[in-house]
């Protein structure tokens, strides 16, 4: 995203936060989007988080071969990695693909079929009507999904570690309960909030300014996912640097 695009992105955000025409209609749209972004992604996030937790435990166990390191450390490393990095970032990148492409193609198709023009002619603030419900749903549901992913990732680690015999249930549970720092949850939720903002607004921007037809909508959708993923990784680094 070059500076011109970034400027247009900021101006679009400014328009998004104009006063809604009717709160009741916006509320209905927000709940619909929460269902789409949150409930609609639960299955995918559950599968990915469980397997990532399981694989991570196995790999940590594989690398910790020294007799001087207690096996409880496997649980601790799985817990901290899941909470601080893997759950927020992997969840966000998966959602950028699933939700981001859907948002970009939905808004892009509305643009090329003149539906956005129709909204504006009616006197409706189209950025607000189309993007604000998605944004609010994103910044509320992505943290919920990240908490869900943390729990399942740690549970997946337990299943993977104990079923393979890499770690005993007692060692794993002792590991995940020892020296737990609740601040790591705060850092993860801050990341989730920022990622929720990116996952909804970057694809919305790409879709909103599409010109052309079906090909351009598809290109915008691809660009939206790529830009959103890069933005997520950059913001991941910035938030980690600032908060830890």
């Amino acid at each position, binding site marked *: 995203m070059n500076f011109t695009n970034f400027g247009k992105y900021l101006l679009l955000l400014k328009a998004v936060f104009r006063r809604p*025409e009717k709160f009741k209609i916006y509320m209905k749209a927000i709940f619909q989007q929460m269902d789409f972004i949150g409930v609609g992604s639960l299955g995918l996030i559950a599968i990915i988080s469980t397997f990532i937790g399981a694989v991570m435990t196995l790999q940590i166990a594989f690398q910790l071969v020294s007799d001087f390191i207690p096996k409880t450390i496997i649980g601790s490393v799985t817990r901290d990695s899941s909470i601080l990095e893997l759950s927020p970032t992997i969840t966000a990148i998966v959602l950028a693909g699933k939700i981001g492409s859907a948002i970009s193609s939905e808004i892009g198709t509305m643009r090329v*079929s*003149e*539906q956005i*023009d129709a909204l504006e*002619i*009616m*006197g*409706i*603030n189209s950025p607000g009507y189309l993007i604000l419900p998605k944004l609010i749903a994103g910044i509320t549901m992505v943290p919920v999904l990240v908490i869900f992913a943390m729990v399942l990732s740690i549970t997946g680690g337990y299943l993977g570690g104990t079923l393979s015999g890499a770690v005993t249930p007692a060692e794993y549970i002792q590991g995940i309960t020892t020296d737990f720092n609740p601040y790591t949850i705060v850092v993860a939720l801050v990341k989730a909030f920022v990622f929720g903002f990116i996952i909804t607004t970057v694809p919305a921007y790409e879709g909103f300014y599409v010109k052309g037809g079906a090909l351009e909508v598809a290109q915008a959708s691809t660009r939206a996912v790529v830009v959103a993923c890069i933005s997520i990784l950059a913001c991941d680094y910035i938030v980690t640097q600032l908060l830890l």
Partner: protein
Amino acid sequence: MIEIKDIEKSFGSNTVLKGISGKFEAGVTNLIIGGSGSGKTTLLKCMIGLHTPEKGSVEYDGREFTQMSFEEKIEIRKEIGMLFQGSALFDSMTVEENIMFPLNMFTEQSFKEKLERVNFCLERVNLPGKNKLFPAELSGGMKKRVGIARAIAMNPKYLFVDEPNSGLDPKTSIVIDELIKELTEEYNTTTIVVTHDMNSVMGIGDYILFLHEGKKFWEGSNKEIAHTDIEELNDFVFASRFMKAAKKNF
């Protein structure tokens, strides 16, 4: 009444509109005609605020539109209905929800009142009982009629219609044209139709503004259009063999 004065619009180095002026009265069907690339749709978009002209003004009953703030423009837009070339119906909504949409956004009517208005608009465009269909289930002509129903749902003072006959068969085109004319006269709206369809020009053109290469070349009525000696206009109006043959009868 809508009055445009000296409208100029460019895209980069390409000047699309070169000082267009005109007056569109209420209660008559006003047509903007011209060949492809003559600037018709750009002029329409300048009039409704989707494009901002570099020069000139657009007045809605004396209210200067181009210099208005965002909030002031919204108030004018609540008085505007528009039928888009591709109908621009919201795909995810049924016919009923499409027509009810502006009522939901801008009125405090009960659901029963809004439904009555939707049914009235659907009857007015000869589509009673099609409430629960989705746009994907409608033919091109039906989409246009639903688009008109949505445009008139809020009782607009100003009605804009962009290429109402594109993609329609001649019979359906005439039905749409007549519907636009009837609604204009019935509700005394200021109606502006952008078209290059000669059936529309001869059928409903009470006032016609002819654009050629971004300039206003001619204005008049459908009764006068066949008797001009402007070469560019004659080339446009009598381009088809049918119209050349019919010219003798005008």
